[in-house]
Every structure is written in structure tokens, then in C-alpha cells.
């Protein structure tokens, strides 16, 4: 029922988008002068309802592509692998010269990638891996996110009782993150992990429930919480707050969500590991243009104007990345950025979040950027 409705809606949306592009594309073409002129980059989103894509990734990709004189067409699969296959078909049919795919599922997307490859259209796996050597992989170093979380927390609390709040059990990212934490935790033998569990759908409610049980089981003797993302951290901090521990027990997160950055300024969250989606989008846009112009996967380079907080540690050239499936795919892997009290001005300066959101409820004189 639901699926059929979405297929119908998506098809209408695609038709509308196609009609709209005919008018807009012609106008843009006149002004362009670079080599990418007239190129069409197709983007297949997995779930555009998540705020991040509309706020940063989408606009950054479009800006990069349009700067090179090309244009962008988009589809949204609404969190359905099946829908995404249909979306990619329609992007190919609309004449895309390169595809940027945020895959719902690393394996289920393969038939679509194969089709694109057969049609000679290069594919970029955006933010989520595609297990195919023909797909270029652009992402942040996910394992490093876990490492950064563990390092930041262990620096503050080198020993004691830890709770680890993991994400959705079926999402490989949950385990990547957990894997990244291990070395830093191993380096501190005084740390005991007293609670550790997955949370369905990375849901705030589940994290709150897990933390309530964890606090009860340990007489509130929890010294630090490593939460794998910010929305779960919201639930964790609410649970800590209920027993008066918010602000004394450090909590991690990732994504740079508005409330999380506010909590960092308030002191109830230690760090939110932020992936600068503007930089990721810009990289994908520029790589898509290179690939559409016929540059080989191995010869692709990252933009040379990436800032220090994201610049790949391996340099701007494409690197081989070994997938969990044992394939070597060409990739550009950007660096995640820990946002703490010390550098919270960065997210405001780059336009990721406004100052009044970060500073809501922060008492004067405690945080530099909040006055």
C-alpha cells in the first residue's frame, strides 16, 4: 500500500523535476564557460527527510556542479531499497552523465550500479559504501569517528564505569564506530564497560530507556557515556539529568545536531563529532564533474581548497579503500572534526548553525562565542 503510493508520488516528482529542468538547464548553459558545461549529475538520495541532506550536502553538491557549468537532477527513495533501484533507472533515462548515490543498502543497490556501468555512466558512492569496484567512494572516516569519541572521553575520564550506547544493530556503521573505540579503550585498563547495547533505529526514546536501566543497575555510578550519535545523546542526557548527573558525566555524540551543539556550549555534552557535510558535498560535486568528463577513477583528485579540519590525511589523490567484502575501491576519505567547547566557533563560522541556537540558555561569560 505504502510502497505503491510512494512509487506513484516519486514518479510524479521525477516527471515534474524533468519538466522543470528543461527550462532551467537552457538558461544556465548560456553563462557557463568551463569544461563541465552542459553536464548532468544525477543524485539518488536514500532519505531526504533527514535534515542534513537538504541543509548542507545537497546545496554543496549543486553549487560545485553548477560552478563547473553543469546541472543536477535529484530523486529520493524514501528509505526504500526497491524505490532506489527505480530512481537510478529514471536518472539514467533522463540522461545523467554521472551518478551520486547515497545507498540505502550497500548490497541491494548493486544491480543499479551495474546498469549504470553498462551504460558507461560513472557512479559515486556518497557517504555510504557501495560494494563495487566501479563505484568511487566518497566518505568520512567512520572508524575514526569512534576513535575520536573514545579519545576525547578517555582524556577526561581515564578510568571508571563506561556505558556504550550503540546505534541500530543492522547498520554496519554502529559496529564500525564501536570498532574504532576499542584501541583507545584498551589503552586504559582502569575502564570497565558496565552497559553496552544497540538501539533500534538510533532512536532517542530507546537510548533514554537503555540509560535508565543502566543507571538503575549501577546505582548511578556511571562515569562516562559514549553515545554513537547526537539524537541518542539527547536521550542519554535526559536520563542523566533525571538523576542529577547531567554536566558531570561526559557524553559523546556525532552529527553536529543543533541541540547537541547547544549541549556542548551548556556543558552537558563533551563532544559532538562533526562531519562537515559542506566539504563532503563539494568534494562529491567536483569528483562527479571530473568523472563525467572522462577522468579515470584512479586519477580523480579531491578539491585542493579543502580546509584543515576535513582535509584527507592521505592527501588529495584517490586512494584504494578495502571494503568489508574484500574489494579495493577508489576513494576519498575526509577527516571528521570533534566539536568541543574549544572550537565550537568553527560550526558557527562555517554557517552550519547559528549563534543563537548554540548559545540558547548559556549563561553569560562561560563560553567565548556566546559573549
Amino acid at each position, binding site marked *: 500500500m505504502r510502497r505503491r503510493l510512494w512509487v506513484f508520488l516519486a514518479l510524479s516528482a521525477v516527471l515534474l523535476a524533468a519538466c522543470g529542468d528543461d527550462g532551467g538547464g537552457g538558461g544556465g548553459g548560456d553563462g557557463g564557460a568551463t569544461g563541465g558545461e552542459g553536464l548532468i549529475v544525477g543524485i539518488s538520495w536514500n532519505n531526504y*527527510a533527514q535534515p542534513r541532506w537538504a541543509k548542507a550536502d545537497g546545496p554543496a553538491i549543486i553549487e560545485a556542479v553548477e560552478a563547473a557549468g553543469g546541472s543536477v537532477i535529484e530523486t529520493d527513495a524514501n528509505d526504500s531499497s526497491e524505490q532506489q533501484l527505480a530512481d537510478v533507472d529514471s536518472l539514467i533515462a533522463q540522461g545523467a552523465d554521472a551518478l551520486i548515490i547515497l545507498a540505502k543498502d550497500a548490497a541491494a543497490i548493486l544491480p543499479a550500479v551495474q546498469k549504470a556501468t553498462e551504460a558507461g555512466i560513472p557512479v559515486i558512492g556518497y557517504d555510504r559504501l557501495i560494494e563495487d569496484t566501479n563505484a568511487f567512494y566518497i566518505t568520512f572516516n567512520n572508524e575514526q569517528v569512534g576513535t575520536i569519541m573514545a579519545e576525547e572521553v578517555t582524556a577526561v575520564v581515564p578510568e571508571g564505569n563506561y556505558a556504550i550506547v550503540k546505534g541500530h544493530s543492522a547498520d554496519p556503521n554502529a559496529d564500525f564506530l564501536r570498532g574504532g573505540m576499542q584501541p583507545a579503550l584498551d589503552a586504559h585498563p582502569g575502564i570497565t564497560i558496565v552497559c553496552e547495547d544497540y538501539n533500534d533505529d538510533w532512536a532517542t526514546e530507546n537510548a533514554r530507556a537503555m540509560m535508565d536501566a543502566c543507571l538503575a543497575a549501577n546505582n548511578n555510578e556511571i562515569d562516562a557515556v559514549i553515545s554513537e550519535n547526537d539524537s541518542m545523546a539527547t536521550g542519554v542526557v535526559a536520563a542523566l539529568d533525571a538523576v542529577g548527573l547531567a554536566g558531570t558525566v561526559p557524553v559523546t555524540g556525532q552529527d553536529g545536531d543543533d541541540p547537541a551543539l547547544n549541549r556542548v556550549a551548556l556543558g552537558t555534552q563533551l563532544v559532538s563529532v562533526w562531519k562537515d557535510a559542506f566539504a563532503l558535498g563539494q568534494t562529491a560535486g567536483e569528483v562527479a564533474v571530473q568523472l563525467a568528463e572522462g577522468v579515470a577513477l584512479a586519477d580523480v583528485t579531491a578539491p585542493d581548497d579543502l580546509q584543515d579540519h576535513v582535509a584527507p590525511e592521505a592527501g588529495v589523490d584517490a586512494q584504494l579503500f578495502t571494503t568489508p567484502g574484500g574489494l579495493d575501491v577508489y576513494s576519498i576519505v575526509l577527516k571528521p572534526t570533534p566539536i568541543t567547547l574549544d572550537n565550537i566557533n568553527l560550526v558557527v563560522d562555517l554557517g552550519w548553525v547559528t549563534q543563537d541556537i548554540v548559545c540558547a540558555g548559556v549563561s553569560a561569560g562561560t563560553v567565548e562565542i556566546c559573549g
Partner: protein
Amino acid sequence: MTQVSEAAEVTPTEVEKEPKSRGNLLRAMEIDFRVFGMVLALAVILIGFGIKTNGRFLEPVNMVNLAVQSVSISIIATGMTLIIVSRNIDLSVGSVVGVVSMVYAQLMHTWLPGWIGFDHPLMWVIALAVGIALGAAIGGFQGFIIAYIGVPSFIVTLGGLLAFRGATWVVTRGVTISPVDPTFKLLGGGPEGSIGGTASWIVGVFVCIAIVLFLVMNRRQRRRFGFPVRPMWAETVVGVVSCGVVLGLIWLFNAYKWPEALAQRHAEETGTTIPPGGLPAGVPWPVMLLIGVTIVMTFVATRRRFGRYVYSIGGNPEATELAGINTKWTIMKTFILIGVLCAISAAVATARLDGATLDLGEGYELYVIAAAVIGGTSFAGGIGTIPGAVLGALVMSSLAYGLSFIGLSSPIQDIVAGIVLIIAVGFDTINRRRKV
């Protein structure tokens, strides 16, 4: 008159000499066999986890946690019971909770502060009023289409499930909103969100007096109309046991003390001292809310014309309509009611998370329907009780909390929850068949 009632008083003892005596006792006290079974199941679950964790599970803090965790589902389940009893269904509850909680958070975080300032004392009242009005409007809208236009409730609320989840996104374009007003946050429980030790005892004593008064009045009224009454011993047992349970629960809530750090901060802020055994937290506000909702809903369902009409429609819609009852308006009212309950539940959920997320309330429809069904509500219509639904929700939340407490991973928890649902309804079906 007196003759009739005396005869009625005698009848039970006469008739029930033949069948099993345990059934007799329950029947004499007029205790629903199903509710009794549920209480038993709940006890088995709690004691089972207690044994497994060497008693640690039975500590007050866990009991308080699982009571609070069941509130959001329980509140809606009381309304879902009436919906299912009248042979309808509401699949949209989770999405309605989502959209209302997003509106609460937006009101308190973004919209209202611009008008009345951040720490306005009435902020939470305004937010709550707007949210409840919105819930009622959504419920009324769906109810109108179902009752007056005649589109099946399954379809209308399935549409609602999709549409209101989308609306949740539209309210904030998918962003998480946090934190909310500090007073509003008290609805989420925790030591600060509880009514305190002394107030709890007062409430307990009040409830006890109310129970006794209710029993006395009920008996008098039955006599007046010549209805059968319980034997005096049964009346006494019911009164004493109910009071005992109420006071026992109050004791349990008071046995949960404020965590030390928080108690100290609270003592400093209010200039009080912490009693030697610790500061008792008392009944959490969300639990008070649930108790209130349960009492009101039970009263509405069993003592008001509206409630009786609902059961009558569930039993036989055609006959009810032919009897001259305005069935359409009655059905629409059940949906307005569940909309209001969704808004109340959303307030508790929002307060507990100190904010609203895009996925808040997702999957509630399944848990709510499961709670009502475990609590003995029949999909055939006409059968179901409100306390049963609340107990059903408690059974589920005890299981979920217990499994998470003993460290079972979440996929395994889902498996157990699914199996328990089927077993519970299976038992009920067999039980009902045997009776017929």
C-alpha cells in the same frame, strides 16, 4: 425490595456449590478472571526477573522506571480500547504523538519565547492547551471522515499514519528540538518530576477513603435498585486488598530516594535538609497523570451514557442504531478522545526526552494495540476494559525493561515481545472459548 435483594444475596452461594471453589471466590468478589490472570502474569514476570538478578530487579528504582516507561503507551491504550470495542482501529496514534510533540517542542523552544519570553511561568500551560486542542482537532477530523462519510477507519488512520508523520517533518524540517520548558519537563518524571513523599502518602490515604466510599455507595445503590450485592466478607476483602495495594505502591514509590548528588543540590536550593534515610521521591507526575486518566476513562466507559453506547455499538451496531442512538456522533467522539489522549501521551514523551525528535512515537500504534489486546480487548468488538489495557501496557513494559536490565540485546527483546503477545492472546482465546 428487600426480599429481592436478599434473594440475590443468597443466590451466589447456592449456585456455586457445585463448580470449583477458586472460581467461586473470585466470582463472589466480582473480580474479572482476565484481570486477575494479568495481575498474576505481571507478578510472575517481576518475580522471575527478580530471581534472575538476585533481587536487584525488584529494587524501587526499577519499579519506578518501568512504571514511568509504560505511561505513554498506557494513556493511549485506554482510548484505543474504546476504539477497538466499537469495532474500529486507529493506526495513526504514533504519528499523531509525533506531530503534537513536535508542536510542543517548537512552541516552547521557538514560537512562544519570541512572544512571551523564555522563562514565562505559563509557557507549559499554553503549550499543553495548544497541543491538546490540536490532538482533539486531528482526532475529530479523522473521526468525522470515518463516522459521517463512512470510509473504513483502517484506511483513514493508515492515511493518517503516513500524513501526520510527514507533518511532523514539516513542522521543523526534520530537525531535533531540545530542550523544552523546565516546568513542562516535570511531566517526564524523575525525582524532580515527582510529587514528594508527604504528598504521596496524602494521595494514598485519599484514594483509600475514595475506595471505601465507592464500595459503600455502590452497595447502597444496588440495594436500592434490587440488584445482587456481594456478600459482606467479599466486600471487606476487596476493600482491604485494594487499600493495601494502593498503600503498598505508595510505599514503593517513597522507597525510591533522590540520588545523593541531586538531593544535595535540591537541599541547597530550597534550604531544607535531607532526612537521614534519604529524600523520598514519591509518585512521579506521569504516573499521577496515568492514574487520573485511567480513573476518568473507566468512569466514562462504565458509568456514562457515551461509554455504554460505545460498548453497545461494538456488541451490535445495527441494533444500537435502530434503538435511536446517534452512533455516528458516538464514533466521532471516540476519535476525538483518542486524539486528546495522544496529546497527553506526547507531552509525557516530550518531557522525558527533554525535546522532540522526528521519529518520536514511531511504532506506538503497534504497542498500543498490543497493550489493549493483551489486556483482553476483543477485535470482534464489544469486549474490553480500560484497567485491562493499562495492565497490558505494564506487562509489556516490564518485559522490555527486564530484558534490557539483564542485558539481553535489543533484537532478542523484540523476539520475546512478539512471542509474549501471541501467547497472551492465545490464552485469552482458549479461555473465552471454554466459557462459551
